[in-house]
């Protein structure tokens, strides 16, 4: 397949919409400064459509430009988890039939993250957007440790509760702190030689499956992921691993 470029209103026009702030005054040079920045960045035929002073010596731009390069879809693999579309009852039935016991999932927002909204959306009984949370699944034992859980405690609880899967949420981030905290958990599991014992899953608005895998996770769920999506992936994966004899702990 040939490269594709962004679509504005004509196939192949390559139009992208941008906004950014430059730390320079919104004076007579501002427009040319913005245009040159876009050319330097590699964009073609930039147009600045809005300039505003965001503060003294700070200029906010809205711009359009043509992309210089496209992308070949054939070279790309999915960054989102390819989870089977299974319903609540199908997931329960799968666990019951293939595993014959409840799947144990332990979840937390770790370290400095005080926000339970992500982990609650997946785990709490009510779930979100009409999709029941893991606690509602009769064949899932869901343990939600809440927010600001130190990695050490999460690992200890996972061992004590003989968890099949560890689910980590990272909502708030600043200067890549979420990546450092997620990495800490992987390092800890590896140091204790426990990494292979669990399905290790993370989720949050800044996470993708690709990024999660780079960090050493089995899967990562980005914004908009629903509890059934996460549950279906975990159930499938656990069943597959059990079949391959890779899940010694609870077998």
């Amino acid at each position, binding site marked *: 397949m040939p490269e594709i470029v962004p679509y504005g209103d004509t196939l192949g026009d390559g139009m992208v919409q941008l*906004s*950014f*702030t430059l730390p320079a005054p919104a004076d007579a040079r501002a427009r040319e400064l913005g245009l040159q920045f876009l050319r330097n960045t590699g964009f073609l035929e930039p147009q600045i459509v809005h300039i*505003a002073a*965001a*503060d*003294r010596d*700070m200029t*906010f731009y809205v711009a359009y430009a043509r992309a210089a390069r496209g992308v070949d879809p054939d070279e790309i693999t999915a960054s989102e988890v390819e989870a089977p579309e299974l319903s609540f009852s199908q997931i329960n039935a799968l666990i019951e039939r293939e595993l014959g016991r409840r799947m144990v999932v332990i979840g937390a927002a770790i370290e*400095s*993250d*005080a*926000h*339970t*909204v992500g982990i*609650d959306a997946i785990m709490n009984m*009510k779930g979100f957007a009409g999709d029941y949370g893991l606690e509602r699944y009769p064949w899932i034992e869901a343990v939600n440790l*809440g927010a*600001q859980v130190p990695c050490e405690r999460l690992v200890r609880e996972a061992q004590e509760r003989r968890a099949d899967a560890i689910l980590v949420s990272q909502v*708030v*981030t*600043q*200067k890549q*702190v979420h990546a450092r905290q997620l990495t800490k958990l992987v390092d800890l599991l590896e140091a204790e030689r426990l990494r292979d014992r669990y399905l290790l899953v993370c989720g949050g*608005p*800044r996470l993708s499956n690709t990024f999660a895998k780079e960090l050493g996770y089995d899967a990562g769920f980005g*914004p*908009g992921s629903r509890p059934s999506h996460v549950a279906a992936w975990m159930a499938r994966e656990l069943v597959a691993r059990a079949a391959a004899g890779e899940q010694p702990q609870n077998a």
Partner: protein
Amino acid sequence: MKLELDSGLVAEARGLADEIAGPVLEFARAHTTVAIERTVARLFGVDGVDDLGVPLPNVLVDALGPRLGKGLAMPLAAACAAGRTPQQVAEAVAAGEPLDDPPEEMLPEARRLAAALAEEADAAILARRAERSRLIEQYGDPPTPWIYVIVATGNIHEDARQAQAAARAGADVVAVIRSTAQSLIDYVPYGETTEGFGGTYATQANFRRVRAALDEVMPEVGRYLRLTNYASGLCMPEIAACGAMERLDMMLNDSMYGILFRDINPQRTFCDQYVSRMVNGRAGIIINTGEDNYLTTAPGHEAGHTVVASNFINRALALAAGIPEPQIGLGHAFEIDPDRPGQLMEEWAIALLIRELFPRCPLKYMPPTKHVTGDIFRTQSLGTLFNLVGVATGQHIQLLSILTEAVHTPFLSDRMLAIQDARRVFEAARPLRDSLQAVPGGPLEQRAQLVLRQAVDLLGQVAEAGMFEAVERGWFADTPRPRDGGRGLEGVAQREPGYANPFLELWEPTLAEAASA
């Protein structure tokens, strides 16, 4: 815009809230906490850290050990009798000097010294308060809704710069969001800080830094600029004291937030909220309550009445701590699922209901966060609707919706776009408040009446069960919190005979009068 409300129901709600507050206050007045005693040290002028970085107020209260129930004031004042300042005593204790109970014959002298130190601190707090009044007179107060924005870089110097930029862009109130884990640490960090997670540590030096930055731009922008921080978590009264000394103008200061959302022990929080509110009341600080958070754990459509019920309870507890209504910034939020049919009408109904129920309180209105996604264009348009409801229902403090909510802490330009939208909507729609009438018996009025009735029912249940029991059963925010669970219980002690706290002795007799101001 007015609503037909059953005045009998409103009176019933107030009565029930007083009934609920009674036993909570009784509990608070029979106990003290490590944070309350550290507040005494701070107000006596103790600041700084020891060689290991432990704040000196902690060093002193740790030195009390099991004598916490007697309070810090007497041993500390007695140690000052030889002509030392509390700071010098704290430094000596940090160097290993014991902090003994004063002998019987020293008590009158210690009591006199403690009272004098408290009066000195009180005078300093009142001086900062008078300074605020003077500056408001000089620079003027902005029209409501006040435009409230947050800065959260982690670095106080960057925060100061962004606070000034926000003020120039049109902000009336700047809050410096705290580092996310701060509510769970049992001390107030020291000095100016440049590293934080999702925010910047609340320290007295950081307060001073941003206060100075805002004061610097007041002449340029031509209005008084308010500074906000968080007297919540394990150090509620200490943070309030730091804020009182550095002329903060608002403090997040909820009576239950720490319990419900940070799993702080209920006994600890009910004691700490009382004393922290006394300090805030005295300092002229507007408290902001945290009911908006209820709707992040429970569905906004179903849980509106828990917000209203909590507003009544927060108000009753604040009045009892000497905060007058013009300083009680009751909170609520625009958190109903925007894809729900009739969502805007329901938001309008609740915002108007709360406005009508608490006409003298500077209501704090919080933006959509729960149903916000990475679609920044959608978030921006939700923010516009939020601004419309805010101005049309006469909200007082509008925490602006930012288009990158749920994505990252606000960029400079994100904040600018939010302020521009708010100003445009406020100017365009301000006359609506006096132009519209809810259709009698129409859906909006019915919705408001239903929420009020549900709130009164919930208050009735809470009054019957008692506050501790209601919290244990998870009646607020769907979050059960046991009386002996959570963090910080070890820092609570029953007051023993001879317990002395010169600030309570000075302020408690004035609370009723202060609250009626």
